[in-house]
């Protein structure tokens, strides 16, 4: 069995989810190679070489790969696919974008967002916003899989795989990058953070996130998330949304502030180790999953919490 893991990275930085995808690959078993396709991505390739269990890193350099657009990425992955039995990627917005494109061209039914490997062809994946877990067996000869990073342990970073430079594939010139607006933050990344504090509709404005959530987050060294309602209302940017269709997090501590706890939100955080809910409505469904619930007005409780830390 030979497995290709497609790295998720920002050229200078490899995502934690990539390493966790290698953990999932280790459970399938076999030779594991990692593909790092980017522009100025040597740093990411070197980080990939350190992931324990990786035999070889394939490094493809070209401007076309700088922004991970689906069309060139899929073309490159397809050009390598013959040599592999399994193609895997983290189920982030990059992997979700190009992997189904690869799967369709290979005439393979992708297994999305796996949370456990039972055997080389059998996997668990959440369905219905995580309210059910399906165990599925793939009959395809080649497997295309995306992996939910939070479900797998981070491997050791003591490897020393060789890095092999490979050529670029053909470019389907049907799409191009125009621009990006990336959210800049000094706080930890949502998906790797040990503590996440999220705000909901009850915050009532972006200013209140600044005033009531961020100070506590900074004291705790926490990442900041939000419910869909808070993102829809424009209080915070889209990349902060935690939930079924946003980001899935599983930190040591998750603090939900002014979030009622719709099933779609719970889908994104209910695997957290300890959940705290602060909400003034004691009937809010979030309390049904919280280890510690505080029925209180967040505008009073949060400044108090900031002082107490």
């Amino acid at each position: 069995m030979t497995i290709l893991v497609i790295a998720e990275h920002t050229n200078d930085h490899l995502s934690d989810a990539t390493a966790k995808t290698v953990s999932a690959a280790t459970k399938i078993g076999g030779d594991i190679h990692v593909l790092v396709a980017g522009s100025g991505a040597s740093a990411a390739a070197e980080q990939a070489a350190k992931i324990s269990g990786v035999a070889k890193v394939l490094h493809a350099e070209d401007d076309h790969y700088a922004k991970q657009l689906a069309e060139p990425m899929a073309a490159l992955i397809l050009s390598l696919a013959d040599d592999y039995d399994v193609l895997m990627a983290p189920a982030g917005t990059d992997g979700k974008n190009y992997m189904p494109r690869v799967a369709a061209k290979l005439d393979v039914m992708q297994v999305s967002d796996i949370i456990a490997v039972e055997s080389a062809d059998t996997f668990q994946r959440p369905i219905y916003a995580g309210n059910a877990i399906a165990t599925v067996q793939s009959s395809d000869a080649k497997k295309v899989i995306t992996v939910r990073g939070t479900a797998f342990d981070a491997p050791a970073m003591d490897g020393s795989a060789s890095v092999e430079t490979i050529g670029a594939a053909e470019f389907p010139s049907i799409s191009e990058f125009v621009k990006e607006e990336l959210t800049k933050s000094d706080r930890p990344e949502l998906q790797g953070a040990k503590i996440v504090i999220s705000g909901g509709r009850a915050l009532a404005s972006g200013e209140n996130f600044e005033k009531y959530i961020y100070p506590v987050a900074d004291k705790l060294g926490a990442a900041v998330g939000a419910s869909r309602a808070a993102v829809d209302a424009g209080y915070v940017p889209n990349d902060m949304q935690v939930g079924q269709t946003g980001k899935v997090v599983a930190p040591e501590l998750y603090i939900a502030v002014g979030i009622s706890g719709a099933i779609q939100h719970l889908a994104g955080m209910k695997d957290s180790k300890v959940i705290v809910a602060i909400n003034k409505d004691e009937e809010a469904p979030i309390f049904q999953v919280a280890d510690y619930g505080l029925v209180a007005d967040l505008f009073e409780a949060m400044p108090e919490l900031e002082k107490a830390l």
Partner: protein
Amino acid sequence: MKVLVPVKRVIDYNVKVRVKPDQSDVDLANVKMSMNPFDEIAVEEAVRLKEAGTAEEVIAVTIGPEKAQDQLRQALAMGADRAILIETTETVEPLSVAKLLAKVCEEESPQLVVMGKQAIDDDCNQTGQMLAALMGWPQGTFASAVTKEGDKLHVTREIDGGLQTVALNLPAVVTTDLRLNEPRYASLPNIMKAKKKPLDKKSPSDYGVEITARLKTLKVTEPPKREAGIKVGSVADLVEKLKNEAGVL
């Protein structure tokens, strides 16, 4: 241009699903079904393109049981011009759906396909990307803004780090994210009018597409249950418990 909008009949997003005792599937008997919320956003976007004069015709298509006509009628009531039902009682996987949609694209030659980024039942997030691949078209997934700029389509995408805008050649596939628009409610007169709009019925075999499943569901189980914990009386209590009981601070 012509716009194709694939929609899916799924469990209503407000319903909490239950797993069947025999672990064969979730229980969908007597459960409220609706149009996949992301597909509603797709229908709305297509109708807005038509209202803005960018699109001339909007065609809704679904693959599903006879009852999936309800969702097509909803799309027609929201403003789609006609609909196609590819009728089957089988569970059709995203790959097969993409193959069927590719056939519809060959027949109808739309310039744009707009569809939900994922269905809230299987949560696969694949079909749009697969369709784009099969057609050799570009894709703008997880869209929060779509504009036509000359002969290109500019799609702003919600990505993990923020927002990314790509320019796509047409024809193209766009998959919708939550913030693309707020779908309208169909008015009663439009619901009545929708009943008279054309709805074609087809079957997968009409398109010569094999819909055999590649994934076998061995079992469906409940996720580990989380029990409600305790209520604390004050912020001080909370901090004390997090430090000394949970040990996470």
